[in-house]
């Protein structure tokens, strides 16, 4: 058990190394002087020389990579020449809204999707199953910004129930904070509800064909308990896996949703940085998002060992 966990924790290193190489190489493979690109259009030649020095651009590529990684490991993500601030301070400012939106969304998706998928599987082939599955295809197909705008149009513009856009930090009152998060997280959760409901249905269906379900029925167990105690418990591993994968989609969705609802989070920061060609910020954000993805999936692997006693190695 402990060996497995240690191994699993160490397995994060090569993945993150690959991510770092990709992010690092993206800028170096682009034609032109990386220092000039980083410095942006408004930079003076002193600025550029200073960046060249800091990035060690005179050194061989591998040494540059080492310097870059070393800086990041010590918490130095570089400076944004666009905003004239350190990247880490900007990220710290913007992380709150994104975290709130993402947590809300996943929570909402799970409490809706898991019961829906389970019922659909239990009533396989019924109108209820077909409706859930039909809705889930639609949920997959309509992009989050379209859902966002439809909701804004109906609930904000026409009905005036919610503010059109904007965000309020939790420090300004929890009521307003939740109130303004409802629409964005509902819009963003649609695709996850579709995804998780589908996966729940598939894995529950698969489990329902297992011999131990027959055993449970042969014991005379009531159907509701067959479903919760035996089927859902065994179907949990693939469902949790899907939630892990969904984190990648969630991060992308956050970028779009923040843009639609004008939320000052990491997503809008990313877009601003891209448009302002503020590469140190872009690099740091990609690294950060990837670390989050990898760590969440690491956490999920740890959950597996609790969900399924067979997983040990």
């Amino acid at each position, binding site marked *: 058990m402990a060996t497995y966990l240690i191994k699993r924790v160490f397995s994060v290193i090569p993945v993150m190394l690959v991510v770092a190489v990709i992010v690092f190489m993206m800028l170096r493979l682009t034609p032109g002087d990386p220092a000039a690109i980083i410095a942006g259009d408004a930079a003076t030649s002193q600025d550029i020389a200073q960046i060249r020095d800091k990035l060690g651009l005179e050194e061989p590529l591998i040494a540059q990579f080492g310097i870059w990684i070393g800086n990041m490991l010590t918490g130095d993500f570089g400076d944004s020449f666009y905003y004239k601030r350190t990247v880490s301070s900007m990220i710290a400012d913007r992380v709150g809204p994104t975290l709130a939106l993402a947590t809300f969304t996943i929570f909402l998706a799970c409490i809706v999707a898991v019961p829906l998928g389970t019922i659909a599987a239990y009533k396989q082939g019924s109108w209820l199953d077909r409706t859930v599955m039909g809705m889930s295809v639609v949920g997959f197909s309509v*992009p989050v910004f*379209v859902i966002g705008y439809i909701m804004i149009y109906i609930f904000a513009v026409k009905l005036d129930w919610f503010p059109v856009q904007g965000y309020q930090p939790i420090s300004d009152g929890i009521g307003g904070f939740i109130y303004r998060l409802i629409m964005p997280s509902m819009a963003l959760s649609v695709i996850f509800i579709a995804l998780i409901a589908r996966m729940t249905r598939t894995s529950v269906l698969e489990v329902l064909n297992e011999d131990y379900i027959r055993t449970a029925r042969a014991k005379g167990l009531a159907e509701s308990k067959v479903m919760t105690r035996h089927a859902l418990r065994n179907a949990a591993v693939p469902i949790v896996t899907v939630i892990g994968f969904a984190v990648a*989609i969630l991060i992308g969705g956050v970028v779009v949703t923040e843009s639609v609802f004008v939320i000052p989070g990491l997503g809008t920061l990313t877009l601003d940085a891209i448009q302002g060609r503020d590469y140190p910020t872009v690099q740091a954000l990609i690294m950060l998002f990837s670390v989050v993805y990898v760590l969440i999936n690491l956490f999920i692997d740890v959950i597996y060992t609790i969900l399924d006693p067979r997983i040990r190695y």
Partner: protein
Amino acid sequence: MTTEAIQTDLTEETEARSRPSAWSRLSQNLSARIGGGLLLLIALIGLFASFLTTLDPTEINPSNRLKSPGHEASIRDDEGKKHKVTAHMGTDSLGRDIYSRVVYGSRISLVVGIAVALISVLAGTLIGLVAGYFRWVDAIVMRIMDGLMAIPAILLAISLVSLSGASLFAVIFAISIPEIPRVVRLVRSIVLTIREEPYVEAAISVGTPTPKILWRHVLPNTISPLIVQGTFICGSAILLEAILSFLGVGIPPETPTWGNIMAEGRDFFQIHPHAIFFPAIFLSLTVLAINMLGDGMRDTLDPRMDRNI
């Protein structure tokens, strides 16, 4: 044992159950029929865009800015004559005809979807086959794929486009890269399962060389799942292209794409929602059609496979 006994064995439950062909099963599937029909319609719209429109989708007309759907405008043709035309879906803030832009936009979407599906499936299959069959390649390739998958697709695509400059090719390339690892994982997992099959072991023991084993015994098993997977990739590529354009980091804004039309309409959304809703309907229907077709194909071609995400 008598010859009679052999006869019993020969006649014993010979399951000559002729399964209906994949195509006929697919054409029976409701989801595939609806999706396929809808997709065909959208493809025809894209193909015959020039016959369906009266206005140049890129022509700017400052006197016709932000008109509602059904607005009648007059334009001059090359010979200087005035024509009355109807802007079925209104006009945008530069006075361009949204209807024409939406119709032409279907071309870009379909081209991006199909190109990304082909590129990522071909590249992913090649890498996946090699990774699944040669263990030392596998370790390296899969670490790279894990790394690529750890970077959220939208961010990877945005950065790639932003670094290589906004163009159709850059967008296709940038969307294909994050899709490849998914195909690699799918193909690799099939290869790993199939190579344990006794019939593959039998082929090894009759001396069939590895490339032939891959081609003859392994590759055919990947075709159905890949067609299904390719369809889903096509759908998500169209979605991703629209998102990139919508965020202003995709194909150049003058090109008529659904994402660009919506991006342009954002600022005036509260008064003129049609600039967003019309392309949104087309975009959603197209992706829905593709996903329904993909679902139908998965159910008929490859019932065991689940949506590979």
